[in-house]
């Protein structure tokens, strides 16, 4: 399959994520949209990695491998971010019994 399909699919997923972050009001859904953005990036990186391997693989056997390694790092960091992020959301829920980000305007005054 041409690389364009992969690029369009991941850009579409990424844009769905961005629109979700900007329009939804539930902290957990915003968080899921951020995860969607990261997964779009993972998909794109793997597709590019395969593409670089197909074009340069003949001269350099390890061409394109770094893209896949990057994906592992993104997964690890995303997991760490989830653990901290959910803890913050739980802490918020304990205090105000809601995860709605419209509550987040006390600081604006």
């Amino acid at each position: 399959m041409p690389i364009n399909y992969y690029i369009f699919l991941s850009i579409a997923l990424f844009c769905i994520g961005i629109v979700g972050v900007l329009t939804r009001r539930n902290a957990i859904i915003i968080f899921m949209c951020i995860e969607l953005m990261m997964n779009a990036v993972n998909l794109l990186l793997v597709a590019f990695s395969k593409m670089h391997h197909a074009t340069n693989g003949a001269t350099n056997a390890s061409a394109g491998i770094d893209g896949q390694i990057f994906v592992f790092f993104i997964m690890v960091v995303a997991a760490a971010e989830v653990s901290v992020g959910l803890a913050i959301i739980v802490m918020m829920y304990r205090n105000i019994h809601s995860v709605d980000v419209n509550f987040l305007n006390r600081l604006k005054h």
Partner: protein
Amino acid sequence: MNALILSAVLGVIMMFSGVMLKQKSAVRNIAITGLFLLLVVNILEMSGMSFFRINTAGMMHFDRFSLLFNCIVFFSTFVYLLLSARDIEKTGNYYAEYFTLIFFILCGVILVSSFQSLLILFLGIEIISIPLYILTGSDKKNLKSNEASLKYFLLGAFSTGLMLMGIALIYGSVGSFSTAQINMTEKPGALMIAGMILLLFSMSFKVSAAPFHFWTPDVYDGAPTVFTSFMATIVKVAAFIAFIRLFGEAFGNLQPQWQIWIALITAATLFIGNITAVFQQSVKRMLAYSSIAQAGFMLLSLYAMNADAKEGLLLYSAAYSLATIGIFAVLIKMNDYTFDGFNGLAKYQPLLAATTTIFLLSLAGIPLTAGFISKFYMLKAAVATGRHLWLVIFAVLMAAVSVYYYFRVIQAMYFKEGQPGIITTSPVFKYTLVVLAALIIILGIFPNLLLNWYYF
């Protein structure tokens, strides 16, 4: 490399010391000694004594610029702990963990100051950000702190997503994450330009430059004041080093394309930071806007991107961090964070008032202070590019505006009557403040004391 490994190990040691040691003072002393060790080890590496020789596969490179910057960061953190370690302990029950997180953040700072690959840039930014989300929310019962940490987390993760997309697009067009390889592309395609713009957006988020600054005042205001001090100084200058290294080393050849955008962002940051700071009633919030305004000045170095700019950024990060840490250390001791809370401070605490005045003068850029000479270097670098002279004139005008809100604090301390409620301070605190003030004046008169390290 010395400092990177040592600071990771120190982080783990601090974690265990929280379990093993019952005395708060022991934990604090270990943290302060550890930071001193970090500083020593880093200076040894600058003079050529590296204990670890690890093949980083071209992903990191410790040159004099990054090592000297690390020295500045370690010294600022050392001063920060000397001044505020007791206040860190008061934030919550798990005081040892806060020191742990600070050491881990320093690991991230070392990574972003010496990266040669976008992978290390991403890891460094995340290692800085994730502990900061925790520190921002460390005052768990306080709603403002909760809110600040949730807001910081959501926006920080969002900007990381943008950064990752940018990196992926650049990888698609170049086939490598190495900054040197990216700089070698001759004709940038649409993927490359889109990736660069996304990286520009996400880095502007991290340094709180103008269209992306809106989270800064809320987060800085909501976080516990000790950690605001850390975020506004050390973390912010670290993000700037990442920014300047990224755009200097990876996109240096594309400078004609991005220079005008950086110029516009700089102007907007200077304008919004300074004008909004004028209308604040709380000193803490004023300092948050002032940090945006100072970020505008630091952006000038990114705009110019020449030898002067690099020197200027080193000097600016030292001058800005030290002065802001000093002001925040005094602010933490106050009961009332409004401007009126400072009324009559000079009468009751003449030493605190005098040193605070020096810090504020330095931030405002009055001659004979480090703030003046660092602003001078920035403007010199911007003039040397020979283009967009309006930006330099605008920056000078905005520096004049900044004098107003810094002098409001001085006016409150010296010329107004009042009884400031202040928590008692230890002798160490006072001596450190005096040393800090002296250092700012010495750096202002002899900036070469710092800059010579860059070359020799």
